[in-house]
Protein backbone atom coordinates (compact mmCIF):
# COMPACT_ATOMS: atom_id res chain seq x y z
CA UNK A 1 0.00 0.00 0.00
CA UNK A 2 1.21 3.44 -0.84
CA UNK A 3 1.73 5.62 2.21
CA UNK A 4 -0.12 8.90 2.27
CA UNK A 5 2.40 11.68 1.82
CA UNK A 6 1.45 15.05 3.25
CA UNK A 7 0.62 17.73 0.75
CA UNK A 8 2.98 20.61 1.28
CA UNK A 9 2.02 24.16 0.56
CA UNK A 10 4.56 26.87 0.72
CA UNK A 11 3.22 30.19 1.86
CA UNK A 12 4.34 33.66 2.61
CA UNK A 13 2.61 35.25 5.50
CA UNK A 14 3.44 38.53 7.13
CA UNK A 15 5.17 38.52 10.51
CA UNK A 16 6.28 41.22 12.88
CA UNK A 17 9.97 41.62 13.27
CA UNK A 18 10.75 43.02 16.70
CA UNK A 19 14.20 44.27 17.60
CA UNK A 20 15.43 43.03 20.96
CA UNK A 21 17.63 45.87 22.08
CA UNK A 22 18.15 44.63 25.59
CA UNK A 23 18.62 41.18 27.08
CA UNK A 24 17.37 42.56 30.38
CA UNK A 25 13.86 41.12 30.70
CA UNK A 26 12.30 44.06 32.57
CA UNK A 27 13.69 46.62 30.18
CA UNK A 28 12.54 44.60 27.17
CA UNK A 29 9.08 44.12 28.58
CA UNK A 30 8.68 47.83 29.14
CA UNK A 31 9.67 48.61 25.57
CA UNK A 32 7.44 45.89 24.24
CA UNK A 33 4.39 47.04 26.16
CA UNK A 34 4.77 50.63 25.01
CA UNK A 35 5.07 49.42 21.40
CA UNK A 36 2.02 47.20 21.67
CA UNK A 37 -0.07 49.96 23.19
CA UNK A 38 0.22 51.96 19.99
CA UNK A 39 -1.88 49.40 18.13
CA UNK A 40 -2.95 46.53 20.40
CA UNK A 41 -5.10 44.69 17.88
CA UNK A 42 -2.16 44.37 15.51
CA UNK A 43 -0.24 42.34 18.01
CA UNK A 44 -2.90 39.88 19.15
CA UNK A 45 -1.20 36.51 18.70
CA UNK A 46 0.81 37.86 15.80
CA UNK A 47 3.55 35.65 14.33
CA UNK A 48 6.77 37.30 15.41
CA UNK A 49 10.43 37.18 14.50
CA UNK A 50 12.87 38.46 17.10
CA UNK A 51 15.80 40.45 15.76
CA UNK A 52 18.64 39.89 18.23
CA UNK A 53 21.31 41.69 16.17
CA UNK A 54 22.10 44.17 18.88
CA UNK A 55 22.67 41.55 21.58
CA UNK A 56 26.46 41.31 21.82
CA UNK A 57 28.25 39.41 23.13
CA UNK A 58 26.11 36.44 22.19
CA UNK A 59 23.68 35.84 25.04
CA UNK A 60 22.85 32.54 26.76
CA UNK A 61 19.89 30.58 25.44
CA UNK A 62 18.25 31.06 28.82
CA UNK A 63 18.32 34.86 28.37
CA UNK A 64 16.44 34.51 25.10
CA UNK A 65 14.10 32.02 26.73
CA UNK A 66 13.13 34.76 29.19
CA UNK A 67 12.51 37.17 26.29
CA UNK A 68 10.31 34.56 24.61
CA UNK A 69 8.22 34.19 27.73
CA UNK A 70 7.67 37.93 27.89
CA UNK A 71 6.54 37.91 24.27
CA UNK A 72 4.07 35.09 24.91
CA UNK A 73 2.78 36.77 28.03
CA UNK A 74 2.02 39.80 25.86
CA UNK A 75 0.20 37.67 23.31
CA UNK A 76 2.84 37.50 20.65
CA UNK A 77 3.77 34.20 19.02
CA UNK A 78 7.54 34.24 18.53
CA UNK A 79 8.64 31.51 16.16
CA UNK A 80 11.98 32.58 14.76
CA UNK A 81 15.17 34.47 15.41
CA UNK A 82 17.06 36.65 13.01
CA UNK A 83 20.26 38.62 13.33
CA UNK A 84 22.99 40.28 11.31
CA UNK A 85 25.34 38.00 13.26
CA UNK A 86 24.93 34.34 12.28
CA UNK A 87 26.58 33.50 15.61
CA UNK A 88 23.07 33.83 17.08
CA UNK A 89 21.86 30.94 15.00
CA UNK A 90 22.81 28.31 17.51
CA UNK A 91 20.45 29.81 20.10
CA UNK A 92 17.57 29.37 17.68
CA UNK A 93 18.41 25.67 17.37
CA UNK A 94 18.68 25.18 21.10
CA UNK A 95 15.31 26.83 21.70
CA UNK A 96 13.55 25.03 18.86
CA UNK A 97 12.97 28.24 16.93
CA UNK A 98 13.31 28.80 13.22
CA UNK A 99 16.22 30.82 11.91
CA UNK A 100 15.50 33.33 9.17
CA UNK A 101 17.95 35.36 7.15
CA UNK A 102 18.27 38.91 8.29
CA UNK A 103 16.17 41.43 6.40
CA UNK A 104 16.31 45.12 7.20
CA UNK A 105 12.76 46.07 8.00
CA UNK A 106 13.41 48.54 10.70
CA UNK A 107 12.99 52.07 9.53
CA UNK A 108 14.44 53.82 12.52
CA UNK A 109 17.77 52.14 11.94
CA UNK A 110 18.14 52.89 8.26
CA UNK A 111 19.43 56.41 7.79
CA UNK A 112 17.49 58.35 5.16
CA UNK A 113 20.54 58.80 2.96
CA UNK A 114 20.74 55.05 2.41
CA UNK A 115 17.16 54.63 1.34
CA UNK A 116 16.99 53.53 -2.26
CA UNK A 117 15.16 55.83 -4.63
CA UNK A 118 11.96 54.17 -5.76
CA UNK A 119 11.03 55.13 -9.30
CA UNK A 120 8.94 52.24 -10.58
CA UNK A 121 5.16 52.37 -10.20
CA UNK A 122 2.87 49.37 -10.20
CA UNK A 123 -0.58 50.23 -11.54
CA UNK A 124 -3.73 48.33 -10.59
CA UNK A 125 -6.87 49.22 -12.52
CA UNK A 126 -9.38 46.82 -10.96
CA UNK A 127 -10.86 47.18 -7.47
CA UNK A 128 -8.86 45.43 -4.76
CA UNK A 129 -11.43 43.25 -3.01
CA UNK A 130 -11.81 41.88 0.49
CA UNK A 131 -9.31 39.06 1.05
CA UNK A 132 -6.95 40.23 -1.70
CA UNK A 133 -3.47 41.54 -1.18
CA UNK A 134 -1.42 43.58 -3.61
CA UNK A 135 2.30 44.12 -3.08
CA UNK A 136 4.35 46.57 -5.13
CA UNK A 137 7.89 45.35 -4.51
CA UNK A 138 10.58 48.01 -4.93
CA UNK A 139 7.86 50.22 -6.40
CA UNK A 140 5.17 52.77 -5.73
CA UNK A 141 1.58 51.62 -6.07
CA UNK A 142 -1.13 53.40 -8.03
CA UNK A 143 -4.66 52.08 -7.69
CA UNK A 144 -7.07 53.69 -10.10
CA UNK A 145 -10.11 52.12 -8.47
CA UNK A 146 -10.92 51.34 -4.85
CA UNK A 147 -9.62 49.20 -2.00
CA UNK A 148 -12.35 47.31 -0.13
CA UNK A 149 -12.63 46.68 3.58
CA UNK A 150 -10.69 43.50 4.29
CA UNK A 151 -8.21 44.10 1.45
CA UNK A 152 -4.56 45.01 1.88
CA UNK A 153 -2.35 47.11 -0.38
CA UNK A 154 1.38 47.18 0.30
CA UNK A 155 4.22 49.04 -1.40
CA UNK A 156 7.90 49.55 -0.75
CA UNK A 157 7.26 53.13 -1.89
CA UNK A 158 4.17 55.34 -1.73
CA UNK A 159 0.57 54.38 -2.40
CA UNK A 160 -1.91 56.48 -4.37
CA UNK A 161 -5.54 55.44 -4.53
CA UNK A 162 -7.83 57.31 -6.88
CA UNK A 163 -10.96 55.86 -5.27
CA UNK A 164 -12.02 54.98 -1.75
CA UNK A 165 -9.61 53.32 0.67
CA UNK A 166 -11.58 51.10 3.04
CA UNK A 167 -8.96 48.43 3.73
CA UNK A 168 -5.38 48.51 4.97
CA UNK A 169 -2.59 50.45 3.28
CA UNK A 170 1.04 49.75 4.14
CA UNK A 171 3.60 52.05 2.51
CA UNK A 172 7.37 52.01 2.87
CA UNK A 173 7.21 48.30 3.64
CA UNK A 174 10.99 47.97 3.53
CA UNK A 175 11.57 51.03 5.62
CA UNK A 176 11.39 54.01 3.27
CA UNK A 177 10.28 56.62 5.80
CA UNK A 178 9.38 59.28 3.21
CA UNK A 179 6.64 57.06 1.74
CA UNK A 180 3.08 58.35 1.79
CA UNK A 181 -0.46 57.08 1.36
CA UNK A 182 -2.78 59.34 -0.60
CA UNK A 183 -6.40 58.52 -1.33
CA UNK A 184 -9.55 60.20 -2.62
CA UNK A 185 -11.84 58.90 0.07
CA UNK A 186 -10.36 58.03 3.39
CA UNK A 187 -12.08 55.20 5.30
CA UNK A 188 -9.03 53.02 5.92
CA UNK A 189 -8.89 50.26 8.54
CA UNK A 190 -5.23 50.91 9.09
CA UNK A 191 -2.39 53.01 7.72
CA UNK A 192 1.20 51.90 8.15
CA UNK A 193 4.29 53.70 6.94
CA UNK A 194 7.71 52.19 7.38
CA UNK A 195 6.63 50.01 10.28
CA UNK A 196 4.64 52.64 12.19
CA UNK A 197 0.93 51.96 12.42
CA UNK A 198 -2.22 53.92 13.01
CA UNK A 199 -5.61 52.26 13.43
CA UNK A 200 -8.91 53.72 12.30
CA UNK A 201 -10.03 54.33 15.87
CA UNK A 202 -7.00 56.59 16.35
CA UNK A 203 -7.44 58.59 13.14
CA UNK A 204 -8.06 62.31 13.52
CA UNK A 205 -11.56 63.59 12.67
CA UNK A 206 -12.17 64.12 8.99
CA UNK A 207 -13.12 62.50 5.72
CA UNK A 208 -12.62 62.75 2.00
CA UNK A 209 -9.31 63.15 0.26
CA UNK A 210 -6.38 62.48 2.57
CA UNK A 211 -2.60 62.41 2.66
CA UNK A 212 -0.86 60.24 5.25
CA UNK A 213 2.82 60.68 6.06
CA UNK A 214 5.32 59.87 8.74
CA UNK A 215 6.51 62.60 11.06
CA UNK A 216 9.29 61.31 13.31
CA UNK A 217 7.64 58.23 14.80
CA UNK A 218 3.97 58.94 14.31
CA UNK A 219 1.62 59.04 11.36
CA UNK A 220 0.05 62.33 10.36
CA UNK A 221 -3.16 62.38 8.34
CA UNK A 222 -3.95 65.60 6.51
CA UNK A 223 -7.42 65.91 5.00
CA UNK A 224 -7.12 67.93 1.81
Amino acid at each position, binding site marked *: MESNALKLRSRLSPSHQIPVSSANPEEFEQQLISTIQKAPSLFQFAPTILDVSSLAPIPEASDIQAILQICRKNRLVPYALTSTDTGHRNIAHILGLAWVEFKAGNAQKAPAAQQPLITETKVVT*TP*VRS*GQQIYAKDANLLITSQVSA*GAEVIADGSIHILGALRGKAIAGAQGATHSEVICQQMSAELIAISGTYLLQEDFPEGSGCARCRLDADHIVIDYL
Partner: protein
Amino acid sequence: MATIIVVTSGKGGVGKTTTSAAVSMGLAQAGHKTVVIDFDIGLRNLDIIMNCERRVVFDFVNVIQGDASLNQALIKDKRCDKLFILPASQTRDKDALTKDGVQQVLNQLKQDFEFIICDSPAGIEHGAQMALYFADKAIVVTNPEVSSVRDSDRILGILQSKSYRAENNMPPVDEHLLITRFDPARVIKGEMLSIADIEDILAVKLLGVIPESQAVLNASNNGTPVILDEKSDAGQAYQDTVARLLGDDRPHRFTEAQKKGFLQRVFGG
Protein backbone atom coordinates in the same frame (compact mmCIF):
# COMPACT_ATOMS: atom_id res chain seq x y z
CA MET B 1 -21.95 30.78 -28.57
CA ALA B 2 -23.26 29.61 -25.23
CA THR B 3 -22.97 31.94 -22.25
CA ILE B 4 -22.16 30.50 -18.83
CA ILE B 5 -23.66 32.54 -15.99
CA VAL B 6 -22.83 31.80 -12.36
CA VAL B 7 -25.23 32.89 -9.62
CA THR B 8 -23.04 33.37 -6.56
CA SER B 9 -22.84 35.29 -3.28
CA GLY B 10 -20.40 33.99 -0.69
CA LYS B 11 -22.98 34.31 2.08
CA GLY B 12 -25.63 31.62 2.39
CA GLY B 13 -29.38 31.99 2.17
CA VAL B 14 -29.39 35.27 0.27
CA GLY B 15 -31.44 34.06 -2.72
CA LYS B 16 -29.07 32.35 -5.18
CA THR B 17 -31.29 29.36 -5.85
CA THR B 18 -34.41 31.54 -6.05
CA THR B 19 -32.55 33.70 -8.58
CA SER B 20 -31.16 30.76 -10.57
CA ALA B 21 -34.66 29.33 -10.93
CA ALA B 22 -36.22 32.67 -11.90
CA VAL B 23 -33.52 33.76 -14.32
CA SER B 24 -33.28 30.42 -16.10
CA MET B 25 -37.05 30.28 -16.50
CA GLY B 26 -37.09 33.88 -17.72
CA LEU B 27 -34.40 33.25 -20.33
CA ALA B 28 -36.14 30.09 -21.50
CA GLN B 29 -39.47 31.88 -21.77
CA ALA B 30 -37.78 34.51 -23.90
CA GLY B 31 -37.01 31.70 -26.32
CA HIS B 32 -33.41 30.90 -25.35
CA LYS B 33 -32.58 27.27 -24.77
CA THR B 34 -31.34 27.24 -21.20
CA VAL B 35 -30.01 24.71 -18.71
CA VAL B 36 -29.68 25.36 -14.98
CA ILE B 37 -27.11 23.32 -13.03
CA ASP B 38 -27.27 22.77 -9.28
CA PHE B 39 -23.71 22.93 -7.91
CA ASP B 40 -24.88 22.60 -4.31
CA ILE B 41 -23.82 18.98 -3.89
CA GLY B 42 -25.32 17.36 -0.83
CA LEU B 43 -28.03 19.97 -0.42
CA ARG B 44 -30.43 19.57 -3.27
CA ASN B 45 -32.98 22.28 -3.46
CA LEU B 46 -33.00 23.71 -6.96
CA ASP B 47 -35.03 20.69 -8.05
CA ILE B 48 -37.59 21.42 -5.35
CA ILE B 49 -38.02 25.05 -6.43
CA MET B 50 -38.28 23.78 -10.03
CA ASN B 51 -40.77 21.14 -8.88
CA CYS B 52 -38.93 18.22 -10.44
CA GLU B 53 -37.49 16.48 -7.39
CA ARG B 54 -39.51 13.35 -8.05
CA ARG B 55 -38.14 13.08 -11.56
CA VAL B 56 -34.47 12.97 -10.58
CA VAL B 57 -32.87 9.69 -11.61
CA PHE B 58 -29.30 10.66 -12.42
CA ASP B 59 -27.46 13.77 -11.34
CA PHE B 60 -24.53 16.07 -12.15
CA VAL B 61 -22.01 13.87 -10.32
CA ASN B 62 -23.22 10.74 -12.14
CA VAL B 63 -22.49 12.51 -15.41
CA ILE B 64 -19.06 13.71 -14.29
CA GLN B 65 -18.13 10.22 -13.14
CA GLY B 66 -19.38 8.67 -16.36
CA ASP B 67 -22.18 6.66 -14.70
CA ALA B 68 -24.84 8.33 -16.80
CA SER B 69 -25.00 10.32 -20.00
CA LEU B 70 -25.93 13.95 -19.99
CA ASN B 71 -29.18 13.16 -21.78
CA GLN B 72 -30.14 10.71 -19.07
CA ALA B 73 -29.55 13.25 -16.33
CA LEU B 74 -31.11 16.37 -17.88
CA ILE B 75 -34.69 16.96 -16.81
CA LYS B 76 -36.98 18.87 -19.15
CA ASP B 77 -39.17 21.44 -17.45
CA LYS B 78 -42.88 20.70 -17.79
CA ARG B 79 -43.88 24.34 -18.18
CA CYS B 80 -41.31 25.51 -20.70
CA ASP B 81 -39.75 23.22 -23.28
CA LYS B 82 -36.67 25.42 -23.67
CA LEU B 83 -35.65 24.84 -20.04
CA PHE B 84 -33.64 21.92 -18.64
CA ILE B 85 -32.39 21.15 -15.16
CA LEU B 86 -29.23 19.28 -14.23
CA PRO B 87 -29.82 18.33 -10.58
CA ALA B 88 -27.23 17.93 -7.84
CA SER B 89 -26.52 14.76 -6.00
CA GLN B 90 -27.85 14.51 -2.47
CA THR B 91 -25.56 11.76 -1.40
CA ARG B 92 -22.09 12.40 -2.73
CA ASP B 93 -19.46 14.59 -1.23
CA LYS B 94 -18.43 17.93 -2.65
CA ASP B 95 -15.04 16.78 -3.89
CA ALA B 96 -16.79 14.79 -6.58
CA LEU B 97 -16.74 18.01 -8.59
CA THR B 98 -13.43 18.24 -10.40
CA LYS B 99 -12.32 21.03 -12.71
CA ASP B 100 -11.87 18.60 -15.61
CA GLY B 101 -15.18 16.91 -14.96
CA VAL B 102 -17.07 20.18 -14.77
CA GLN B 103 -15.36 21.45 -17.91
CA GLN B 104 -16.29 18.34 -19.87
CA VAL B 105 -19.94 18.62 -18.92
CA LEU B 106 -20.02 22.34 -19.69
CA ASN B 107 -18.37 21.82 -23.08
CA GLN B 108 -20.97 19.27 -23.96
CA LEU B 109 -23.81 21.55 -22.80
CA LYS B 110 -22.38 24.47 -24.78
CA GLN B 111 -23.14 22.67 -28.04
CA ASP B 112 -26.83 22.49 -27.28
CA PHE B 113 -27.70 25.47 -25.10
CA GLU B 114 -27.60 29.23 -25.35
CA PHE B 115 -27.43 29.85 -21.62
CA ILE B 116 -25.93 27.71 -18.87
CA ILE B 117 -26.87 28.91 -15.38
CA CYS B 118 -24.74 27.65 -12.49
CA ASP B 119 -26.42 27.81 -9.07
CA SER B 120 -23.50 28.10 -6.66
CA PRO B 121 -23.41 26.76 -3.12
CA ALA B 122 -22.69 29.26 -0.32
CA GLY B 123 -19.15 29.96 0.83
CA ILE B 124 -15.92 30.59 -1.00
CA GLU B 125 -14.57 27.05 -0.89
CA HIS B 126 -14.29 24.31 -3.47
CA GLY B 127 -17.94 24.04 -4.51
CA ALA B 128 -18.35 27.78 -4.98
CA GLN B 129 -15.07 27.98 -6.87
CA MET B 130 -16.11 25.15 -9.20
CA ALA B 131 -19.43 26.89 -9.92
CA LEU B 132 -17.77 30.16 -10.89
CA TYR B 133 -14.57 28.90 -12.50
CA PHE B 134 -15.78 28.70 -16.10
CA ALA B 135 -18.23 31.59 -15.98
CA ASP B 136 -18.52 34.27 -18.65
CA LYS B 137 -20.93 36.33 -16.58
CA ALA B 138 -21.61 36.44 -12.86
CA ILE B 139 -24.74 37.49 -11.03
CA VAL B 140 -23.57 38.39 -7.55
CA VAL B 141 -26.56 38.13 -5.22
CA THR B 142 -26.39 40.49 -2.27
CA ASN B 143 -28.73 41.28 0.60
CA PRO B 144 -28.71 44.86 1.92
CA GLU B 145 -26.62 44.11 4.97
CA VAL B 146 -22.96 44.56 5.77
CA SER B 147 -21.95 40.89 6.05
CA SER B 148 -23.57 39.96 2.76
CA VAL B 149 -21.94 42.91 0.97
CA ARG B 150 -18.56 41.97 2.40
CA ASP B 151 -18.92 38.38 1.20
CA SER B 152 -19.96 39.56 -2.25
CA ASP B 153 -16.83 41.67 -2.36
CA ARG B 154 -14.77 38.56 -1.62
CA ILE B 155 -16.49 36.57 -4.34
CA LEU B 156 -15.84 39.42 -6.79
CA GLY B 157 -12.17 39.18 -5.85
CA ILE B 158 -12.19 35.45 -6.59
CA LEU B 159 -13.92 36.03 -9.93
CA GLN B 160 -11.20 38.54 -10.75
CA SER B 161 -8.28 36.36 -9.74
CA LYS B 162 -9.20 32.68 -9.72
CA SER B 163 -11.59 32.14 -12.61
CA TYR B 164 -10.64 30.48 -15.89
CA ARG B 165 -10.83 33.85 -17.59
CA ALA B 166 -8.50 35.43 -15.04
CA GLU B 167 -6.01 32.59 -15.12
CA ASN B 168 -5.88 32.61 -18.92
CA ASN B 169 -5.61 36.37 -19.41
CA MET B 170 -8.96 36.56 -21.14
CA PRO B 171 -11.37 39.49 -20.78
CA PRO B 172 -12.64 39.41 -17.19
CA VAL B 173 -15.88 37.79 -16.07
CA ASP B 174 -18.73 40.23 -16.72
CA GLU B 175 -19.97 41.08 -13.22
CA HIS B 176 -23.54 42.04 -12.32
CA LEU B 177 -24.95 42.99 -8.96
CA LEU B 178 -28.39 41.74 -7.96
CA ILE B 179 -29.75 43.09 -4.70
CA THR B 180 -32.38 40.76 -3.26
CA ARG B 181 -34.70 40.81 -0.24
CA PHE B 182 -34.69 44.59 -0.48
CA ASP B 183 -37.05 46.40 1.85
CA PRO B 184 -37.13 50.18 1.27
CA ALA B 185 -39.02 50.83 4.51
CA ARG B 186 -36.17 49.29 6.50
CA VAL B 187 -33.62 51.36 4.59
CA ILE B 188 -35.45 54.51 5.69
CA LYS B 189 -35.35 53.29 9.28
CA GLY B 190 -31.61 52.76 8.90
CA GLU B 191 -31.88 48.99 9.39
CA MET B 192 -30.62 48.14 5.93
CA LEU B 193 -28.02 49.49 3.53
CA SER B 194 -29.36 51.61 0.70
CA ILE B 195 -28.89 50.70 -2.96
CA ALA B 196 -26.50 53.64 -3.34
CA ASP B 197 -24.39 52.42 -0.39
CA ILE B 198 -24.11 48.93 -1.84
CA GLU B 199 -23.25 50.19 -5.31
CA ASP B 200 -20.66 52.49 -3.81
CA ILE B 201 -19.00 49.72 -1.78
CA LEU B 202 -19.01 47.08 -4.50
CA ALA B 203 -18.50 49.24 -7.60
CA VAL B 204 -20.28 46.77 -9.88
CA LYS B 205 -23.10 47.57 -12.29
CA LEU B 206 -26.54 47.02 -10.88
CA LEU B 207 -28.55 44.37 -12.72
CA GLY B 208 -31.66 44.47 -10.58
CA VAL B 209 -33.32 44.93 -7.23
CA ILE B 210 -35.67 42.19 -6.00
CA PRO B 211 -37.93 43.28 -3.16
CA GLU B 212 -38.49 41.22 -0.03
CA SER B 213 -41.71 39.47 -0.94
CA GLN B 214 -44.14 36.89 0.36
CA ALA B 215 -44.55 35.81 -3.27
CA VAL B 216 -41.10 34.18 -3.16
CA LEU B 217 -42.08 31.92 -0.27
CA ASN B 218 -45.40 31.04 -1.86
CA ALA B 219 -43.67 30.26 -5.13
CA SER B 220 -41.05 28.00 -3.62
CA ASN B 221 -43.70 26.15 -1.62
CA ASN B 222 -45.57 25.53 -4.87
CA GLY B 223 -42.47 24.55 -6.80
CA THR B 224 -42.86 27.44 -9.26
CA PRO B 225 -40.07 29.88 -10.05
CA VAL B 226 -41.41 33.22 -8.78
CA ILE B 227 -40.93 34.81 -12.21
CA LEU B 228 -44.05 32.90 -13.29
CA ASP B 229 -46.09 34.83 -10.71
CA GLU B 230 -46.50 37.75 -13.09
CA LYS B 231 -48.66 39.77 -10.74
CA SER B 232 -46.16 39.77 -7.90
CA ASP B 233 -43.56 42.47 -7.28
CA ALA B 234 -40.72 39.95 -7.04
CA GLY B 235 -41.89 38.22 -10.23
CA GLN B 236 -41.92 41.50 -12.13
CA ALA B 237 -38.55 42.50 -10.70
CA TYR B 238 -37.08 39.22 -11.94
CA GLN B 239 -38.64 39.80 -15.37
CA ASP B 240 -36.94 43.20 -15.54
CA THR B 241 -33.71 41.55 -14.46
CA VAL B 242 -33.85 38.97 -17.24
CA ALA B 243 -34.71 41.66 -19.79
CA ARG B 244 -31.66 43.69 -18.71
CA LEU B 245 -29.50 40.59 -18.93
CA LEU B 246 -30.66 40.31 -22.54
CA GLY B 247 -29.69 43.90 -23.23
CA ASP B 248 -32.92 45.79 -22.51
CA ASP B 249 -32.64 49.08 -20.65
CA ARG B 250 -35.31 49.19 -17.97
CA PRO B 251 -35.69 51.49 -14.97
CA HIS B 252 -35.40 49.92 -11.52
CA ARG B 253 -38.73 49.41 -9.75
CA PHE B 254 -39.76 48.54 -6.18
CA THR B 255 -36.89 50.56 -4.78
CA GLU B 256 -38.96 53.11 -2.93
CA ALA B 257 -41.13 52.69 0.11
CA GLN B 258 -44.83 52.59 -0.78
CA LYS B 259 -46.83 55.49 0.56
CA LYS B 260 -49.36 54.10 2.95
CA GLY B 261 -52.86 53.94 1.48
CA PHE B 262 -55.79 55.80 3.03
CA LEU B 263 -57.16 52.78 4.90
CA GLN B 264 -53.74 51.87 6.23
CA ARG B 265 -53.28 55.41 7.49
CA VAL B 266 -56.61 55.29 9.26
CA PHE B 267 -56.32 51.81 10.68
CA GLY B 268 -52.53 51.57 11.02
CA GLY B 269 -50.51 48.63 9.80
